[in-house]
């Protein structure tokens, strides 16, 4: 018993953080779904969910409840145990991956020396949930979806991993905390390695199976891909895993390329007024909520709106705490979490923007993009960043070194596009030779 108490005492904060992650991540995922529906509605000139709660604010909770009490159907010839187990693998991988991420200098479950490759390794296991689920369903659509998903993830994981190697090369460490600290005072790595960031953005969209790379669940061809036979709560668990994975890749990109919990322009003293942004942002939202409260059609909606405004006010007060004399120490923790989550949500917003802008790829196009463009370019990108690092050590200025390496990588990218277009025989393209020959 004393041993247990000692254990709890040593690891208390980590256990609390773990509970917070497990509790908050599903809620966050639910609200990312709501955000996606709202963004989609906005881009398509609609209103989106408006019924449950004011402006549909309670929609995720209603959806979760609906899925919980829905009938759970298992196909007759399914492999029952694997069918039951597959969604759990997916969601576990996504949640365990979060344990090494640092949301602010203090909020981290495990400070690992191998932080980044730990996250990559654990989240690469989420794919087993998809393959086994597709196989266990004993359905053609599911199996085809699972096969597509496997091929896609294998192809794009290489590109994503090599894009991360570029960032790690600049940071000189694998620990998530130290990667962010390496960007402190200097520039964020997105400005040093823009091509690496672009590669990771594309590869992470492909890895999370989102449009325009959502072939594993292409509804016009495969019903719903690997989740065709799933219903009710098991389906919800897959859905949760997908959105949790999105949050994980967004967090990796934020840590490695977007400066993690650091404030934008943290090293410029003239822009210190940006410190007022977090509390001000919540104050404005709270004020808007209170302004809209009397205008809601139902009293219950007014109440929920007021509650939401109160929550925002509470957060605003929490964010304003660092300005109280004597509490300035809480600034990195509170504001760090704010900036980190803001960047994560901006990254996810770009995912949504891309989803509603581009049509879906064909499978051979997807493979060609992965193998002929992404992987060669990511290798060249690593080489270029290595050269950049050597040039910086040789006392070169930042701009010549940056222009030389990034320009070189860009030239390779253009050359790759030219070759790919020539191979695909796209008429009228830069690489089209048919006209010249004929």
């Amino acid at each position, binding site marked *: 018993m004393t041993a247990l108490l000692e254990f709890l005492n040593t690891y208390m904060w980590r256990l609390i953080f773990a509970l917070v992650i497990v509790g908050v991540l599903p809620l966050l995922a639910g609200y990312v779904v709501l955000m996606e529906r709202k963004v989609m509605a906005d881009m398509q000139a609609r209103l989106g969910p408006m019924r449950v709660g004011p402006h549909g604010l309670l929609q995720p909770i209603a959806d979760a409840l609906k899925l919980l009490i829905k009938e759970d159907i298992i196909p007759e010839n399914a492999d029952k145990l694997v069918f039951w187990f597959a969604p759990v693998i997916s969601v576990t991988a996504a949640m365990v991956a979060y344990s090494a991420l640092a949301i602010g200098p203090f909020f981290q479950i495990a400070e690992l020396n*191998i932080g980044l490759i730990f996250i990559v390794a654990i989240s690469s296991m989420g*794919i087993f949930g998809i393959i086994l689920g597709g196989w266990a369903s004993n359905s053609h659509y599911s199996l085809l979806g699972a096969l597509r998903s496997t091929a896609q993830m*294998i192809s794009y994981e290489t590109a994503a991993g090599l894009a991360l190697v570029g960032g790690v090369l600049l940071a000189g460490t694998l620990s998530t905390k130290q990667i962010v600290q390496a960007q402190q005072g200097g520039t964020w790595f997105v400005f040093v390695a823009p091509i690496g960031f672009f590669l990771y953005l594309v590869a992470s969209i492909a890895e999370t199976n989102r449009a325009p790379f959502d072939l594993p669940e292409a509804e016009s061809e495969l019903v719903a891909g690997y989740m065709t036979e799933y219903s009710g709560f098991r389906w919800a668990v897959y859905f949760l895993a997908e959105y949790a994975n999105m949050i994980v890749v967004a967090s990796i990109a934020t840590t490695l390329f977007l400066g993690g919990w650091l404030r934008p322009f943290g090293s410029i003293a003239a822009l210190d007024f940006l410190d007022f942004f977090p509390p001000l942002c919540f104050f404005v939202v709270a004020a808007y909520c209170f302004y809209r409260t009397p205008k809601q059609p139902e009293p219950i909606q007014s109440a929920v709106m007021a509650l939401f405004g109160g929550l925002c006010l509470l957060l605003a007060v929490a964010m304003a705490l660092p300005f109280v004399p004597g509490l300035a120490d809480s600034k990195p923790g509170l504001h760090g979490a704010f900036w980190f989550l803001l960047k994560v949500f901006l990254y996810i917003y770009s995912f949504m923007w891309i989803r509603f802008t581009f049509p879906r790829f064909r499978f051979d196009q997807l493979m060609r993009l992965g193998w002929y463009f992404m992987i060669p370019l990511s290798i060249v990108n690593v080489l270029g960043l290595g050269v950049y690092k050597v040039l910086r050590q040789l006392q070169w200025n930042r701009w010549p070194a940056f222009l030389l390496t990034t320009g070189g990588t860009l030239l390779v990218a253009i050359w790759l596009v030219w070759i790919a277009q020539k191979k695909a025989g796209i008429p009228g393209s830069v690489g089209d030779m048919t006209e010249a020959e004929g």
Partner: protein
Amino acid sequence: MTPTQISQIAFYFFAGLAVLGAILTVTVRNVVHSAIFLITSLLATAGIFLTLGAQFLFAVQIILYVGGIMVLFIFVIMLVNLDVALHQLQFNRQKWVAGLLALVLGSQLGVAIWFARAKGSLDIPSGRTGTLSPQNVEQFGLALFEKYALPFEIASVLLLVALIGAVVMTKKRI
């Protein structure tokens, strides 16, 4: 509980899981279930690496074996006809020879461990159990690129040759 005790419990847990997974891999009839148990076994091996403080090997084991090779295994398994495997004979009739060989190997290992114990060379130096060396990846990288640079380069050239060979063999026209 001291870190050493936790590390010992973790070791026996992972070791048991690895052996159990390996046994089930060969005894289970369904090929996909075999693959799942092989994954379990490989993951448990990764866990043993972690208890030994080899963090980098832990990550590489998961990324390469579990995330790469096993995914390809299952991919291939799904493409072939599973029903054929279910009706075939799972084990051939040479179990006595196999049992004898297993006995010889087991006794060999047992004797080796027994002698090593008597000499005391199996004792892990104190201070190395349970503590994860914080600079593992750095040390690994330095060893690979400074002390063992030549073997490392030769191995990578070998892998490159294998890679190109595979492409050449599968492509009809280059």
